[in-house]
């Protein structure tokens, strides 16, 4: 008879969570106001208003198909690539609407980076992967590029593993290393916000732990938004949690509160595993 499953994030109470709930709410870096996303006729995101604080990790949780990835991709205009997708409402970065007139989506994505579910290194060397962004953005000095490469890889906790083979193919790295390389690649272009779409869902527990440590460290310098369907992960790394269901945002608040005292019945059902 196996032991009944315990929810690790509930076992130790609030102190196991990333941050005490009492900490004052930090200033907002990004915010959405009445955000709607449609795929053709399908209303994927329904009127979501959410504030995403600077230098904090915000987690978006919810069952598969609830729209959390769709919401995330609206935050750096990735939907621009999908002709049938339509975005309404506003998304602001430091108060400026990124969908506003005269805003260059390339510039938006320069400031708001993204890490994807499956690692997507370029078919180039490790070094080229990291410095590709800075190069395209105009950095030509080789010495400077080498420094950026090292700095980014150190920040992404990958430097020690790859420093002796910077010129070998990025495709030869393990899945977890590839994902950290993709994070390093993001850090190299110095974004202000990093969006992560289930960054560890394709990785084994050890690699996941490394990515999570990294996410937690990134909150010193960046606003991080992470989509995850692992509630334990949300509890471990995030300061704020927002629960999505069927395209609506049901509840948002400090992670400790959402997990221990959810105000909405549906949130409670989800985090206690009654559905999802």
């Amino acid at each position, binding site marked *: 008879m196996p032991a009944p499953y315990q929810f690790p994030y509930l076992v130790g109470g609030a102190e196991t969570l990333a941050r005490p709930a009492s900490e004052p709410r930090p200033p907002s870096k990004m915010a959405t106001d009445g955000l709607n996303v449609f795929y053709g006729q399908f209303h994927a995101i329904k009127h979501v208003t959410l504030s995403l604080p600077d230098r904090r990790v915000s987690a978006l949780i919810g069952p598969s198909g609830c729209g959390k990835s769709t919401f995330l991709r609206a935050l750096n205009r990735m939907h621009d*690539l999908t002709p049938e997708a339509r975005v309404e409402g506003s998304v602001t970065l430091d108060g400026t609407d990124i969908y506003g007139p005269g805003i260059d989506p390339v510039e938006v*994505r320069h400031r708001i*980076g*993204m890490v994807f579910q499956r690692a997507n290194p*370029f*078919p180039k060397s490790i070094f080229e992967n990291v410095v*590709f962004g800075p190069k*395209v953005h105009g950095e030509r000095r080789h010495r400077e590029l080498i420094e950026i490469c090292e700095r980014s890889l150190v920040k992404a906790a990958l430097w020690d593993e790859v420093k002796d083979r910077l010129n070998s193919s990025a*495709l030869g790295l393990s899945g977890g290393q590839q994902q950290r390389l993709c994070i390093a690649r993001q850090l190299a*272009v110095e974004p202000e916000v990093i969006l992560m779409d289930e960054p560890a869902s394709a990785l084994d527990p050890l690699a996941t732990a490394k990515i999570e440590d990294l996410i937690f460290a990134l909150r010193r310098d960046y606003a991080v938004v992470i989509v995850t369907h692992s509630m334990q992960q949300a509890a471990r790394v995030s300061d704020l949690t927002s629960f999505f269901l069927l395209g609506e945002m049901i509840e948002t608040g400090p992670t400790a509160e959402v997990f221990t005292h959810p105000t909405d019945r549906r949130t409670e059902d989800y985090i206690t595993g009654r559905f999802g």
Partner: protein
Amino acid sequence: MTTTRSQLPFGRRPLTAHMRWRYGWSAVGVIGSGFCAGLAASLLLLILGYVAIQGVAALNPAFLTHVPRPVGVPGAGVANGIVGTFIVVGIAVALATPVGVFTGIYLALFGRGRFAETVRFLADVLSGIPSIAIGLFAYTLFVQPFRHFSALSASLAFAILMLPLIIRTAEESIARVPTRVREGALALGISTYSSTIHIIVPAARAGIITGLLLAIARVTGETAPLLFTAFGSQFWELNPTNPMAVLALQVFTYAISPYEDWHRQAWAGAFLLIVAVLILNVSARLVLRNRFEA
């Protein structure tokens, strides 16, 4: 112990008549299709072997280094035709590659709706047009107005012949670059232009080069369009605005001549062509095998 269905253990039951019939037809199908495959392969080997035997016999150093001589004069060669083939095909590649690759990029990444569909359809139609018709087209466009044959007009015909193959292979190999790699580039704040030029096209490089090699292999053996474009020449000719000797054309001229000596040279020329096409095909395979290596 035993079930009501069968008294015998599984594996010991006799086959039903229906199952015997099915296995019988299956065997007929396998043997029949194997025989057809063998036939196809042996025909190819037969041609290759026959051309090799006939060709190698007539091959000698002079054949590769000298220009043609009158019938019966020893030491005749097709060196001008070999060089001519390189010139005509080379110019055709220079003409067709940029147009073909950029069309492929357009179709794979940006082409949507009616215009792209039309381009795709026309490329398919173009690949089915007989090469002699394309030769006639090049003749009217490039030979008639200038009142003399030229290697350039042959290159134009070859470029048109190569175009559909280059377009479709470029499109396919670019479309096969995963969307997530494109998104990864865009998420770094990189413009579509930069990501296309620096990430997507290099990632599809192997496929593009393969298509190019196959297109070269296809036109190297083409003769029909050359009849009224490059026309042929008995002399060293390096100026592409003049008529020029091309190996495939020399093979044709020699083969229909009444002279035994020229027939032998035609075999040797045909052998050279087959070897060239074989090398191109094999290198295309090698390129494709090494893809996804950064």
